[in-house]
């Protein structure tokens, strides 16, 4: 186990710049998730950490050693691949033992280590099978077993769950989290699934266009996004972005919205943003669907809550909640209400806009205000 420090890493393929100055500090035992849309460079960054790709400039430090120019085998890193990459010609036991054999571990110790890992992952009955005789979930476990066997300094996971079906994925997710809590290993994990990122990570690095947009705990990234991209990427259904005008109230500021022909002023919590220089201009209001709910009497009187009637355009029941698509400022806005409170399509419905967690972005730069 060790710390991982990525210092200003650039990676280019000819004129194509994949990574543009990535810096991350990962502390010992941390579970880090790199998340972003495809082509954001997250897998390239993982390959650079593993040594499977050379960096163009910048440094990668593992513990106190600079491993930037070391071969993958000298870095003491284990990786789990999306396709699992189990050696098809070897049985499960051989697959797990391969790395240990290469490192010239004595036979007895290898057997012991394979047994330990097999017990840990509950794959003992599978040890003599070939990968082709395993189900997707079993292959996944074997791939993890192979990584665990060497007890390397850090573990890299490249979308390890994305080939599993939905139910198994959720199960394996929980299992992976348990495993991390038990072993306390340093993990860097790549995924494009923001739910996986939220549930597993100690800290999330949201990437786009070869740049880390934000690096923080799941809650920070969710509540306090650095820009519109992060805000929109994290959370499902995603955050509503409403273009609206800033107005000056008696002492504070508000944003102005229109619903069914009526104008409403939504008060802005000064803790969330200082909009003094934007009065009369348009900003983007970011408000998550769960901040727009049906009317709950005990909340109506709160300072940053405003009651607004909206017209229901679409309803999407999810079971626990019903999502309502409303039209605000002539833009679509998703709201999350209790199923029993939800109105019918075409009807008007009273909703509470809770502005205490609302965030604001510059219309042009998409940066957080």
């Amino acid at each position, binding site marked *: 186990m060790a710390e991982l420090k990525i210092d200003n890493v650039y990676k280019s393929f000819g004129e194509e710049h994949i990574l543009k100055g990535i810096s991350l500090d990962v502390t010992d035992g941390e579970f880090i998730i790199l998340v972003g849309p495809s082509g954001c460079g997250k897998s390239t960054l993982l390959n650079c950490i593993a040594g499977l790709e050379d960096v163009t400039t910048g440094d990668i430090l593992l513990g106190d050693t600079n491993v930037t120019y070391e071969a993958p*085998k000298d870095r003491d890193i284990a*990786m789990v691949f999306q396709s*699992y990459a189990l050696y098809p*010609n070897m049985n499960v036991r051989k697959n797990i033992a391969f790395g240990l054999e290469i490192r010239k571990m004595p036979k007895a110790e290898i057997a012991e280590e394979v047994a330990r890992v097999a017990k840990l992952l509950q794959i003992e009955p599978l040890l003599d099978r070939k*990968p082709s005789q395993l189900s997707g979930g079993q292959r996944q476990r074997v791939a993890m077993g192979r990584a665990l066997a060497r007890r390397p300094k850090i573990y890299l996971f490249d979308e390890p769950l994305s080939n599993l079906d939905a139910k198994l994925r959720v199960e394996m997710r929980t299992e992976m989290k348990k495993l991390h809590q038990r072993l306390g290993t340093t993990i860097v994990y790549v995924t494009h699934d923001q739910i996986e990122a939220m549930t597993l990570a100690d800290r999330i690095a949201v990437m786009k266009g070869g740049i880390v947009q934000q690096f923080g705990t799941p809650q920070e990234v969710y509540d306090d996004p650095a820009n519109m991209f992060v805000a929109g990427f994290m959370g499902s259904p995603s955050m509503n972005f409403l273009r609206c005008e800033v107005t000056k109230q008696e002492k504070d500021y508000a944003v102005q919205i229109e619903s069914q022909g009526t104008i409403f002023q939504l008060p802005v919590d000064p803790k969330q943003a200082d909009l003094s220089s934007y009065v009369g201009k348009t900003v983007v209001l970011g408000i998550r669907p769960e901040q727009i709910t049906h009317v709950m009497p005990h909340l109506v009187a709160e300072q940053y809550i405003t009651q607004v009637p909206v017209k229901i355009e679409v309803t999407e029941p999810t079971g626990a909640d019903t999502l309502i698509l409303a039209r605000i400022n002539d833009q679509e806005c998703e709201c999350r209400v209790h199923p029993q409170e939800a109105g019918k399509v075409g009807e008007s419905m009273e909703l509470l806009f809770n502005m205490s967690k609302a965030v604001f972005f510059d219309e042009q730069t998409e940066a957080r205000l």
Partner: protein
Amino acid sequence: MAKSKNPSYANINARAVLYAVLIIVAAYYLLPLILMIVTSFRSMDEIRMGQLIEWPKTFSFDAWSMAWSEVQIGAREERGLRPYFINSILMVIPSVAISTILGALNGYVLSFWKFRGSELFFAALLIGCFLPFQAILLPQSQLLGWLGLSGSLVGLILTHVVYGVSFTTLFFRNYYVNLPHELVKAAKLDGAGFWVIFFRIILPLSAPILVVTVIWQFTQIWNDFLFGVVFSDPSSQPVTVGLNNMVNSSTGEKQYNVDMAGAIIAALPTIVVYVVAGKYFVRGLTAGSVKG
């Protein structure tokens, strides 16, 4: 014909037509071989008296032993096709082995250890597949002369290896690019180096393409006549050249039965290779290595 109402009868009719066509085609291709075999067991007297195409009245192996070890070919002391056959074996085994190993290594490097210009290198190598035999006769004989290998088996082997590497590389490279690259990445992280990955991961997965390459190279080299006739001297001539010399000797009577037996002898090894190795042709060893 009225369409049968019962779908299973329609099926049987279709099958019957299919089999009839297949049997006709198979017979068409097999007839020359059958004729050769039949003729090789007839005696010359019988052939002279009757027709060329006829069922044997007597059955004898005389023509076979004649072709193998008795017939006088050219002016050499040893008789029959046997010395030529031995030459062919001595030539084909190292040629096939070396060109296949080189092809596997080339394909491995070109798929998993790409270097600057490796694509260009591969393209250049591919040109070798389009070079006609005739085009390299003069430069190759010059080269063999310089190397002091003219007319030797080693020179012949070298020629076949060099000419074959383009094809074997193409085969292996195209097979390896379809293997999951993550296998090699995983092996690198497991600490394996160039040779360990090749011998422990890649080669065990290569059985299907290995068989294809060996069959291809074996047939090509065994059946080659042009290189054999140009780059050899009487002591190193392969069986194709021996057969030609035997059949084309202008003195005396044409011994059809011996010619036929000789031709079968010369073709036998390629047939054996197909029969023995053919079943390994389609073998999905990598099935299950990726995804679920």
